[in-house]
């Protein structure tokens, strides 16, 4: 197993108060890692949250757990190939940011991970997408989507109460069952993890659309978390929000990464630098470069990456 040790560039953004952590980046091209595979020697940090792995454990490896990966994934809309032979893995415990100019295929790649791209009639996919060693095509699509949650550009709570929004995914086939009592602990837990509980605990029956934009987006996070996804896909989740809401959402994302593998599409390179552990740069459907955030932003290997990130980080 070929492991490459990498020192991430901590110290930018809100992650600065988290102790710097050492990380093993696994070269996916050579070593596909299966679920539960253990990267490296016995880990004294087993069971600890990633951000607890830090200063005191200098030189110790980090638990890496792959949740999803794509293999030579191509997606075409008619004749236009939006994503070309992309191979990438999504790991729990870290935030993967997809960056690139508009129309480079990053949103298409994201939407293919929960097969939402199939709603576009002209879309055609080749290559494989693996979730926990199983092709996503082997899953019932509704089951797949409850394991791979998604957050959209615009906050889009449903026109029902805050409680019903979070409970929506738990209820069977649109019926009101199971009863509120059974769902309540799950709903409360999801709202707490999304950092919204303190603000809405007294008015769970209020309409969700009366919340502010930032609260709505955190409600959407809670709604996704309630169905216990393993992967959370975020499609520019802060593009419609003000800076304060954005920073709250970013904090929430960083806190969630220990439990859910997170993939975020963003046009905001500063945001990617603040919250991402790994960054993948796409250009015209090609996966140009992927690696640790510090490496892609600090020392990009490809000229095209350099040109793109150079604007903001030159």
């Amino acid at each position: 197993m070929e492991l490459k040790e990498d020192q991430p560039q901590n110290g930018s953004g809100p992650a600065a108060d988290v102790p710097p952590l050492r990380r093993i980046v696994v070269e996916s091209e050579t070593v596909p890692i299966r679920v539960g595979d253990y990267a490296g020697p016995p880990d004294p940090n087993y069971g600890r949250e990633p951000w607890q792995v830090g200063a005191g454990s200098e030189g110790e490896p980090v638990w890496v757990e792959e949740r999803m990966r794509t293999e030579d994934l191509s997606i075409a809309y008619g004749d236009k190939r939006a994503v070309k032979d992309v191979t990438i893995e999504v790991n729990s415990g870290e935030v993967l940011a997809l960056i690139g100019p508009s129309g480079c295929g990053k949103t298409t790649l994201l939407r293919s991970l929960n097969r939402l791209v199939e709603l576009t009639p002209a879309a055609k996919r080749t290559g494989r997408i693996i979730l926990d060693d199983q092709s996503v095509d082997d899953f019932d699509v509704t089951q797949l989507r409850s394991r791979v949650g998604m957050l959209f550009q615009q906050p889009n709570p449903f026109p029902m109460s805050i409680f019903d929004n979070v409970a929506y995914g738990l209820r069977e086939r649109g019926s009101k069952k199971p009863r509120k009592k059974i769902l309540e602990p799950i709903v409360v837990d999801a709202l707490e993890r999304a950092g919204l509980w303190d603000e809405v605990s007294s008015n769970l029956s209020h309409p969700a659309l009366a919340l502010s934009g930032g609260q709505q987006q955190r409600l959407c996070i809670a709604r996704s978390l309630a169905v216990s996804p393993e992967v959370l896909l975020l499609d520019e989740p802060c593009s419609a929000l003000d800076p304060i809401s954005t920073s709250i959402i970013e904090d929430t994302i960083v806190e969630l990464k220990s439990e859910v593998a997170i993939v975020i599409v963003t046009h905001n390179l500063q945001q990617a630098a603040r919250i991402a552990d790994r960054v993948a740069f796409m250009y015209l459907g090609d996966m140009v470069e992927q690696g640790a955030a510090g490496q892609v932003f600090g020392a990009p290997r490809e000229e095209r990456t350099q040109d793109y990130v150079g604007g903001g980080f030159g």
Partner: protein
Amino acid sequence: MSIDVRTAAPGPRPGPGSDPTDPRPKPKPSMSAAAGISHETGWSVGDRVGLVAAWVCGISLCVVAASIVLFMAWKGIQFLHLDMLTTSPEASLDQSKTGGFLDPLVGTLLLTVIGIAFAVPTGVAIAVWLTEYGRPSGLARLVESGVEIVAGTPSIVLAIFGLLVFQQSFMGIFSFTAEGGAVFGRSFLTAGAMMALIALPLVIGSTREALNTIPRHVREASYALGKDKASTIRRVLLPSARSGIATGATLGMGRICGDTAIVVILLGASMQTTPESGFLGLFRGTGSTLTSYVYNNSPAGEGNAPDKAYAAAFVLLMIVILLNFVVSLIGKRNKPQWN
């Protein structure tokens, strides 16, 4: 002729050229004045005439609307007595003994309920199919033209068509069958079915509009939570479109209340509600509505009792105005708003 517009129409704001130290280019008054352009607003004579015409037309419409309401109120309140609302019409040569219009009032409400009960589920289903499925697209276009044809057909044509259909012997259960097997074809059910066709395009139109304003990402958010299309439609889309559906239903009720041709042809000529015996006898029986009552009592009808026609017309107008008020109330209720 050359007019200096700055002196002809002094404005509160100094324009370019009013200050000798102003470096902006001075306007050329002689040219623009000759073209009939004022620098105050930049409106040409033609535009000004159009504006005045628009004002006049708008105000005239208000005058017409107000005079309808006021005239009907004046006549209606003059002839309307409370006991008219509680007594049934009677056949009599003496006008003082012909009773009131309880039956037509109840008939209007009954027919409206029947028509809407047919139109809303059907219309919502068609609108959902058109917006959420709509495939194959050729069939969708066919359905759309079907809706347009129904919407454009005059109600008297729908009525005569309805009579043709419901007089078929296999449609006998919907109305009265005479000895010898002739089907009468006229009843609350048959008239209500044709009334549903009048309301249907309105229900379809406003439901479609409401569904179309729901952004695509809201549907996708439901799919992304592992929900299928059916539960997304039922739990997210239809609740979001609720006020649109209600608007369409209320507009449809207004149209049903006001239609006369279908009532005259398909609800029978009797002013009194005449239930049939047996199951759903009331619905299979004949009757009247306020519109047919007004028609029959007007100088054009047989009754020639314009007082009662005015009173009934006033009540009908109040019902329709109330329904319009409800429509605007529904429109003001906060609909779900996404960005």
